[in-house]
């Protein structure tokens, strides 16, 4: 990636020839990270925030991810958005198996990451029991900023190549936990008992 970094830092003025050399692997990883297609796996409330992230205000199209393919055969990243019930678990695994390598999984929300507030008979306590997870995004639901942070973290891992190397060795997911980004507007808290407006 050094040729591209040079240009990013120094502009075309630093280029000596009219050739750019680099590794094919770098180019492949760069394009993979910037054109990943998501598999639709919106289950519950997190799916609404996921759709909100694709919406104009948060716009993941700038990261190349606005295309959500319904067919898992055409998708790269599966964003498990929502609580996975016992009945849904085999379906989740089947969809994951149908995805082509390279594939990654983002576990969006606390229900997908650990079962969330539903610690009971009906919910699988974390999708990592079923599929290897690469990035965990906390929140209930995660704000669109948090989801974008998770996606970009994953994109960076893809671009760096670490994730593929690790997967080849252990078969496990990257297990990256990110920090939740709270929504931007802060509201002043009134401590009085009666309102005046």
């Amino acid at each position: 990636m050094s040729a591209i970094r040079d240009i990013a830092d120094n502009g075309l003025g630093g280029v000596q020839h009219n050739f750019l050399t680099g590794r094919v692997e770098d180019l492949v990883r760069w394009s993979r990270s910037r054109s990943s297609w998501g598999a639709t796996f919106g289950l519950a409330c997190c799916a609404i925030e996921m759709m909100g992230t694709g919406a104009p205000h948060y716009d993941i199209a700038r990261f190349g991810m606005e295309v959500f393919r319904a067919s898992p055969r055409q998708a790269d990243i599966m964003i498990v958005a929502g609580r996975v019930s016992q009945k849904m678990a085999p379906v989740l695994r089947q969809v994951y198996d149908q995805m082509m390598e390279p594939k990654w999984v983002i576990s969006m929300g606390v229900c997908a990451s650990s079962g969330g507030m539903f610690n009971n008979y009906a919910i699988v306590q974390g999708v990592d029991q079923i599929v290897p997870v690469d990035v965990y995004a906390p929140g209930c639901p995660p704000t669109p900023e948090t989801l974008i942070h998770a996606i970009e973290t994953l994109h960076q891992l893809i671009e760096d190549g670490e994730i593929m190397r690790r997967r080849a060795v252990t078969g496990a997911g990257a297990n990256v936990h990110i920090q939740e980004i709270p929504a931007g507007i802060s509201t002043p808290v009134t401590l009085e008992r009666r309102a005046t407006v």
Partner: protein
Amino acid sequence: MNAEALSAGVVAHEVNGQQLLFVELSAYLDTVTRLHNDGFTMCIDLTAVDYLAYPSRKVPAGVHTERFELVVNLLSIAKRERVRLRVQVADGIPVPSLFDIHPSTEAMEREVFDMFGISFSGHPDLTRILMPEDWDGHPLRKDYAPGRIPVQFKGAAS
């Protein structure tokens, strides 16, 4: 709520401003049919409660309590009235299905069957609806544990 709809096996009650009818299982289908003819054409909700852990609940005199209670909410659009039926059901006793009078109860009765194990005779398709087909047990019964997994927190006492 007129006297016509009341008959043997039905005790009327009013609580919190809501009309309540305690109906014996033998008078259940009859009462619902009468109410349907009387204008209560929508069966808004059908659910059940397992009173295993609270057998001493307050009921009017003359009502013999059982383990389960079937709660049926009926609505009359013309009269803008609701009425709630509470039917005492013992464990293992099948209940007549309301499907022929109120087709809306198809999914509701399946849910009660799935969650409580109460079977409905005359229901067209009494299978589980929320749990997987091979699930064992009826989750909303009181002797069915919530199924929590123990979670360890750093510094927690328990």
